[in-house]
């Protein structure tokens, strides 16, 4: 186990290192230091600021030294300075992170609960009406672009049903520390949108995994011993069937920074995705660079955790 841990961690570090080079080149490779400094300065570039950026980022040095400087800062947790807003990238990201975390965790609870529930119901009664209905709705929501679903929910709940549903605000965000009730109200529609789009895969994965487990011999044994169907499913089958679901959930939460972009923009939640799109509008490169790096760190760490958990649960994995 310890060797697996070491090997897997080294592998994650290598992946992060190569990713950082790719991201670095994407932003630092340009026609000359002045031009690169110019793009980092964004819209409000003055000659003085460009000169300062050139100095700050060591742009007049060779590329590998620039990378060394940048990566050195990264290792100390410093994502750079946002010249447009006049504050550090860390503080911009820090103030946007709680919104994104609220959105992702709330939605993840809904999509995993709904996905597992519908998958189990489908697998217990395969080819029944309920199974077909869940399968069809999974395909429907899976095909829907998240912004189409979000706009539809806004249209239905906030406009068409507005006399009944005035309690559905759909634009903005209230911090949970400021007002937990409003925090919940403002997040209902974003949570639903993200959850419905994501749940489809979980429905199908749980269903196929559950069907496989229900065909195993130990399930037949348990049934022939007279175990109740309910206990059989919840205690014996579900536990074994959930391993791939847990893996997928870990990976999905890792990449969720990509999935929340559209939803944050649509519902006006000033989280990381919204900040990224705003930064693109005003050509604020340090923020775009910082969020891209953060997203990569998130994914690699999530993958690492999932692999370690998996190895702890299933010893066969450690072999390779």
């Amino acid at each position: 186990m310890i060797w697996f841990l070491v090997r897997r961690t080294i592998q994650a570090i290598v992946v992060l290192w190569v990713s950082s080079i790719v991201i670095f080149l994407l932003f630092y490779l340009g026609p000359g230091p002045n031009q690169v400094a110019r793009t980092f300065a964004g819209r409000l570039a003055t000659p003085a600021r460009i000169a300062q950026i050139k100095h700050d980022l060591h742009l007049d040095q060779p590329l590998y030294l620039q990378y060394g400087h940048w990566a050195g800062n990264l290792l100390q947790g410093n994502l750079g300075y946002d010249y447009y807003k006049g504050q550090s990238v860390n503080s911009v990201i820090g103030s946007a992170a709680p919104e994104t975390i609220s959105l992702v965790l709330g939605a993840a609870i809904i999509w995993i609960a709904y996905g597992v529930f519908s998958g189990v119901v489908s697998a217990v009664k395969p080819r029944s009406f309920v199974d077909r209905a869940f399968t069809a709705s999974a395909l429907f929501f899976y095909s829907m672009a998240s912004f189409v679903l979000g706009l539809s929910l806004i249209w239905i709940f906030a406009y068409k049903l507005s006399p009944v549903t005035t309690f559905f605000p759909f634009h903005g965000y209230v911090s949970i520390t400021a007002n937990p009730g409003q925090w919940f109200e403002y997040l209902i529609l974003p949570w639903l949108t993200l959850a419905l789009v994501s749940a489809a895969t979980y429905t199908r994965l749980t269903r196929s995994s559950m069907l496989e487990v229900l065909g195993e011999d130990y399930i037949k044994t348990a049934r022939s011993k007279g175990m109740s169907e309910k206990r059989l499913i919840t205690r014996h089958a579900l536990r074994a069937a959930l391993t791939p679901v847990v893996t997928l959930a870990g990976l999905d939460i890792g990449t969720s920074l990509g999935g929340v972009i559209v939803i944050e923009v649509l519902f006006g939640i000033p989280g990381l995705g919204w900040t990224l799109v705003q930064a693109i509008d005003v050509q604020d490169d340090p923020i775009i660079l910082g969020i891209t790096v953060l997203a990569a760190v998130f994914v690699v760490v999530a993958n690492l955790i999932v692999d370690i958990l998996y190895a702890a649960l299933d010893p066969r994995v450690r072999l390779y």
Partner: protein
Amino acid sequence: MSMVPDITGTDPGLENPLTGAGLVAKKIQGRSPWRLAYERLRQDRAAKIAFATIVVIVLLAIFAPVFATITGHGPNQQFITIGENANGGPVPPSGTFWFGTDSNGRDLFVRILYGARISLTVGVLATAISIALGVLFGLVAGYIGGWVDSLIARLVDVMLSIPFLVLAIALAYRVGPSLWVVIFIVGVLSFTYPARIVRGQVISIKGKEYIEAARALGSGPWRIMFIDLLPNVMAQVIVYGTLLIPLAIVAEATLSYLGVGIPPPTSDWGAMISDASGYFQYGYWWYLLFPSVALLITTLAFNILGDSVRDAFDPRGGGLFV
């Protein structure tokens, strides 16, 4: 009559269970997996409806200029007098504007048809890039194995380490958005899915005797990969291709919705929905509804067809992308 069924079919006593006609001198045919899959698909009503829908969408896209001529409205032509109401907002569907107009007084119906061209082009070309790269990398990684496999696996890890949309946005922003940039980004960034599938398939069949025989006959690695292995992974590639098209269409629409996709004034569904999201609250429902429905029907049709194609090749069933 003997107890053993006469497989040559010359026994006039045997009847075809489907037509009821006597099987006179009809031999049992060998049916390839392709033939079997095709026959299963033909039985699948959902697949037939989805396929017909796709054909209609493709035809509408191809003949978009014809509809522009019939209505007399170009895709980017503004009708400031008849296409906008007194406040300068869109006008509702009518005999002149079948789907109404957008906020610039342009014919929504004609623009949606032209938008279908963009969506289908991106969907098909991006998938083609993704499949071509995926097949190449998957074959090489699976057949050659060893350090080449590890290298490709790490390359895939690096690509997957940045969430698709974040990387696509950063790339589109840095390179400058255009139709070809979007096709290239979506295609290249999604090659990891087909690569993984092809690699897995190749590993499972490369130990078979016929591959050994090919090697014994002196076939080189490239010949074995593309002549002997590729046809046997083609079914999986087709299944994934059909399922990748709707993903590419949604990815393109999402990039355009966020303003880093196809630049205006080109009519694009994602950009149209984005424009409409500032108007539908004021009663301009058609502006949002028609492009959204167009996008939904297209992706739904491809997903249903892809699902059926997969079921046809592998009737044991599986899940959506699982």
